[in-house]
């Protein structure tokens, strides 16, 4: 029988204690894996969300509510417009890889609720907008059949509310024309879900906003320096520059403080595992004081005792970590729901990403920390003198 088998047998002799120790390590590993997964998932989802907007920079008229939610809160008022010449000038600059012009429009719908409500439209350029938002997928139909087509594309929730499917006709508040529904988008989890899209020229025409634009979405060339380009835009009169990099950095700096707390909790979980193992193994060594003495008196070397106790520690930690990782994978859906519930802002996408580097890091760090915690009890066990242990028998 080798040292490892002896260690296994020792653990099995005290099943309850072994199980509780494994449970303690398992909980620490679960917390650690989940927090590391969150650390990775949140940032990745945020990046994807911001990149998914398709624009690196959005240019709007100063004070213009460029988000549908803001526009609704303001009762559909407050829209400001940029001169087309200025927009064309920016779109044509050297650093710009792609640009798309948009017109947001809010119309009062007297047949919504008791006192009416606001419907928001987005006039888009059919040639450039779809390419800037490649993540938009269709549930039914597709984009407009022509630039001048009297057609609309509905976000998923807008289509649900209006009970429209591709091919249906629809009336839009603010217009007497009938529009054919060219397509219904899949759910995206963004403001696009509630949006009614129509061709830009048509929107400008029916809402009497010829030559007017509310937004310009820009994507820069890879070699372009975004901060230098933004500085150029800041010098333009009466426009505001919404940089997605800025938005991301603002959110990330807010999240950074939350991350410090999260990692502190992870560190505490780590320490609990370490001291838990140290305490359990030390108690076990004290209980087996005479047993260790007898082992030594029949020929076991201090090195053998040290390895035996350390093997027990390593086994406990490895099994606990493994169980914790399995729990983290099993309950990642529930953990994510809980995180979404408590977080004031959570991006769409996976918030907790568990991949092998995260899992391996958690497994190794918990196991190694546990083993480190087991070194002192192992040394104490190795240092037991057979005579002292035999004399200690009452």
């Amino acid at each position, binding site marked *: 029988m080798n040292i490892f088998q002896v260690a296994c047998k020792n653990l099995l002799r005290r099943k309850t204690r072994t199980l509780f120790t494994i449970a303690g390590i398992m909980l620490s590993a679960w917390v650690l894996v989940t927090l590391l997964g969150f650390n990775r998932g949140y940032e990745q989802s945020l990046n994807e969300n911001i990149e998914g907007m398709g624009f690196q920079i959005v240019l709007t008229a100063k004070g213009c509510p460029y988000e549908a939610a803001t526009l609704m809160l303001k009762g559909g008022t407050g829209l400001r417009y940029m001169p087309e010449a200025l927009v064309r000038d920016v779109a044509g600059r050297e650093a710009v890889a792609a640009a798309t012009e948009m017109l947001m429009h809010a119309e009062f719908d*007297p*047949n*919504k*609720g*008791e006192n009416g*409500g606001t419907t928001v439209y987005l006039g888009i350029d059919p040639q450039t907008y779809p390419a800037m938002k490649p993540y938009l997928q269709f*549930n*039914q139909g597709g984009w407009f059949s022509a630039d001048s087509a009297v057609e609309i594309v509905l976000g998923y*929730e807008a*289509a*649900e*509310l*209006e*009970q*429209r*499917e591709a091919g249906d*006709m*629809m*009336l839009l*508040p603010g217009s007497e024309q*009938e529009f054919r529904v060219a397509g*219904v988008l899949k*759910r995206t989890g963004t403001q696009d879900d509630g949006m009614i899209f129509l061709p830009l020229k048509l929107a400008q025409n029916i809402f009497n906003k010829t030559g007017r634009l509310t937004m310009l979405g820009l994507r820069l060339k890879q070699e372009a320096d975004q901060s230098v380009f933004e500085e150029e835009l800041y010098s333009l009169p009466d426009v505001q520059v919404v940089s997605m990099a800025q938005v991301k950095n603002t959110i990330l700096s807010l999240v950074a403080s939350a991350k410090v707390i999260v990692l502190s909790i992870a560190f505490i979980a780590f320490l609990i595992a370490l001291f838990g193992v140290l305490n359990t193994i030390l108690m076990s060594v004290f209980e087996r004081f005479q047993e260790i003495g007898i082992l030594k008196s029949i020929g076991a070397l201090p090195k053998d005792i040290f390895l035996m106790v350390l093997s027990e520690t390593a086994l406990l930690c490895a099994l606990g970590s493994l169980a914790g990782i399995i729990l983290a994978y*099993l309950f*990642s*859906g*529930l953990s*994510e*729901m809980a995180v*979404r519930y408590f977080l004031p802002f959570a991006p769409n996408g996976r918030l907790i990403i568990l991949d092998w580097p995260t899992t391996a890091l958690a497994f190794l760090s918990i196991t190694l920390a546990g083993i480190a915690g087991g070194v002192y009890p192992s040394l104490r066990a190795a240092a037991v003198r057979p005579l002292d242990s035999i004399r200690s028998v009452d």
Partner: protein
Amino acid sequence: MLKIFWLLILLAGFAPAAVGCDLNDPDRDIQRLFPGAKVTYKTAYLSLARLGGEKTLRAVEERLGDKFSGLYETIDVPYTLYTLYQDGQLAGYIHGINQKGRYGGLQVFLVYDPDGVIVNFYYQKLTSRQAGKLRSPEFAKQFTGLSLRDFLSYDVLAGAGGSAGAQVIKNPDPADRTDFLATLRAVKKNLILMDLFVFNKGAQ
């Protein structure tokens, strides 16, 4: 069984829900739709999927005389039921459904007394060329006093039949019947669902 339970738990966070039909501002809307002494209410969310599933859906379709169709009229649509109380006593119910109209969605709410008789009718949302006429108080009044019994023999596809009370409901714009017929289908569906949810639960 245990595997299915875990799978459901893990998937719970990712399943997109079908759209329901809630009052925009229940506190204000309920008081307006059910005037009188101060009304308190309880909200319940029901669905055919949870009330017997496919079998119940088929039964509802049979009573309606039409199939549930399209992307949005599905078995998992959550229906919102407002149960109303006045002075601690049951005073009535409010229930709304979404209905496909010619040019957009209709949200038709019916207010019921405790016996299932319609006491008020309300379009929360309506996209129609004849919206002004359909939303008139005169049109809404025609539904007052009617119940499921009046619509049981009403054929939603032909737009004919029903009791004398149902047959006298006038289309405010005879030149365009589509949204009028969609409204009557919505009313009959609303009545059938209320019968299922509240008035005739035991018959499921």
